[in-house]
């Protein structure tokens, strides 16, 4: 489903060039729940951004369903992010002026759905993540866990091919983190492909596969369950 080939990402920092990803190659299959772990600075989030077309690799290629997406224009990448991917960011990343349901509706409206259709889908997505009430509340009126549920609902409302999650439990307490993880497992059981960055080994061990990064390279790729 998604394949990375020799991904290198480097930044210019002052006069020096810092390389974050050093030739990463790996593949995620349809329906897989993959977690990417590693120490801080190992390149987990950077890798997720490359896979999710939020950033361009310095070199290397990314294929989605065997289609090379590396050379897509910015407009085409935006369109692909809208239709094919879902994102859950570390700090919820909800738009503060939009209510919970409006945050979920915005990308649906962008896809050209009618207001009614977008609202129906948003309500369904919020139900799926266990947030049937408080949908008209603004983000600052919701708890961290509720905000993250809204963020997940926004990411899955349009049935994306792949769901990318960047440390989705980082700012949550243990109990809420487990609930969020349950929501991911529920989606996974329904067939959703998920790529999750986490620094919690306990949570990673609940996924199908753990890809460990160290200093911008894959040091281990461990399959925990068989996935067809």
């Amino acid at each position, binding site marked *: 489903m998604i394949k990375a080939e020799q991904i290198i990402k480097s930044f210019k920092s002052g006069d020096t060039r810092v390389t974050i990803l050093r030739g990463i190659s790996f593949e995620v299959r349809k329906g897989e729940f993959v977690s990417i772990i590693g120490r801080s600075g190992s390149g987990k989030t950077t890798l997720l*951004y490359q896979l999710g077309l*939020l*950033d361009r690799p310095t070199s290397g290629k990314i294929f989605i369903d065997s289609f090379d997406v590396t050379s897509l224009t910015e407009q085409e990448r*935006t369109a692909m992010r809208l239709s094919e991917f879902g994102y859950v*960011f570390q700090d919820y*990343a909800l738009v*503060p*002026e939009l209510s919970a349901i409006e945050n979920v509706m*915005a990308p649906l409206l962008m*896809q050209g759905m009618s207001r009614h259709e977008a609202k129906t889908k948003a309500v369904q997505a919020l139900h799926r993540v266990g947030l049937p009430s408080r949908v008209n509340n603004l983000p600052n009126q919701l708890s961290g866990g509720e905000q993250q549920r809204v963020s997940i609902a926004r990411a899955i409302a349009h049935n994306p091919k792949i769901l990318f999650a960047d440390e989705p439990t980082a700012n949550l307490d243990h109990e809420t983190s487990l609930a969020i993880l349950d929501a991911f497992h529920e989606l996974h059981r329904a067939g959703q492909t998920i790529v999750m960055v986490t620094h919690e080994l306990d949570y990673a061990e609940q996924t199908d596969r753990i890809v460990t990064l160290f200093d911008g390279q894959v040091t281990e790729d461990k399959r925990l369950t068989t996935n067809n």
Partner: protein
Amino acid sequence: MSAKKLSYRISNFFAALRVGFFLAVRQVRRSSLWMNILVIAIMTLTFLNLVVVSGVLVGLIQGAVRAVQEHYIGEIFITNLKDKPYIERSTNIISFAESLPSVRVVAPRYVEGGVAQSNYKKAKKSGELREEAGTLISGIDPIAEDEATGLSSLLIEGSYLEPDDFDQVLVGALLLRQYLEFDSAAFPALEDVGVGSKIRVTVAGNTREVIVKGIIKSKVDELDRRIFFPEKQFRSMIGRNDFNVDEIAIRLEPETDQVAIKNAFLAQGFGDYARIQTQTEAEPKFLQDIKKTFNLLGSMISSIGVFVAAITIFIIFFINAITRRKFIGILKGIGINPLAIECAYVLQALFYVFFGTLIGSVIVFGFLEPYISAHPINFPFSDGILVVPLGSTILRIAILLVVTLVAGFLPAKIITRQNTVDAILNR
């Protein structure tokens, strides 16, 4: 471009507009009330700066023009031809004017150059000059003149002339030292003269000792440096027995076409005996020149105002976009077309400029313009009014709108062009 691709682009464009509107409405509705008030207040002040500053500048001169028209030339002003000492066939011209139904009142005037003297009975020291001032002296029909130009309303001291008054005059304030705010050899003035004072007036070789019955002050130099006699006495003083006058001010009924009236006079052949001018043609040339100059100055100040407005609005929206950079990045990240984000900012700009100009227009047209018209600003040489023609105001609103849209669009464009990850991570 294939039809499918074109159709996709068009539907994407409209979806972007729709999402832009969706975001803009909520951003305005849910942002701080004080922030909205502040931005609208800035837009209102920007509008006022564009309209009022140039309006007052032009109104300063327009006030002077209006005073000249109102108190001196009327709607049609008839004077002697350059090579003639007075208006020939004046009685025919006056009779014709009075026969026209759209003519409200006709005020003929005799005008001659003369000299006024004061304190002439005081013993002068050797070498000391007499207190005298060369001036124009007018003979008027007090009733017609008052109806035409409201001369009695310009009295600041004393009382107005009666048709049968004899040896009594009205004196313009600029001929009297106590009303002259400057001391210049070019403006000789009479000392210690007030209502009841006796002055000596010499005109056409005749000298009369007359009593000052009233003093007028109008901010129209042509009036403020004149002495007014009732026409009966004045006519005999200058020996004008043919009733030919030097000036005729004609007031018309409202909305009367001045050019048509002028043409009616010309059609009668009066153009051969007198110079017949409409209100605009009769405006003193220096006022016309100053009017053009102040119009130009007003346009320059407005241009600077537009430039300052553009920078102000740009800064407001740039700060707004910078503080929301992370969310703009997130919106892009989840696939919202940058056009939708730019559209949201442009629509917000539109909202602020709409309410800013609406409030500004209410202030200008509902309060400032009528108030200043009723209570003109007391400038030294004119009663300044606020000139805000609808056409130029609409033009200024359009300019402000365009400037605001560009100033709202550019910051959003700058931010949406940034790398998505950099925006999300605020780096």
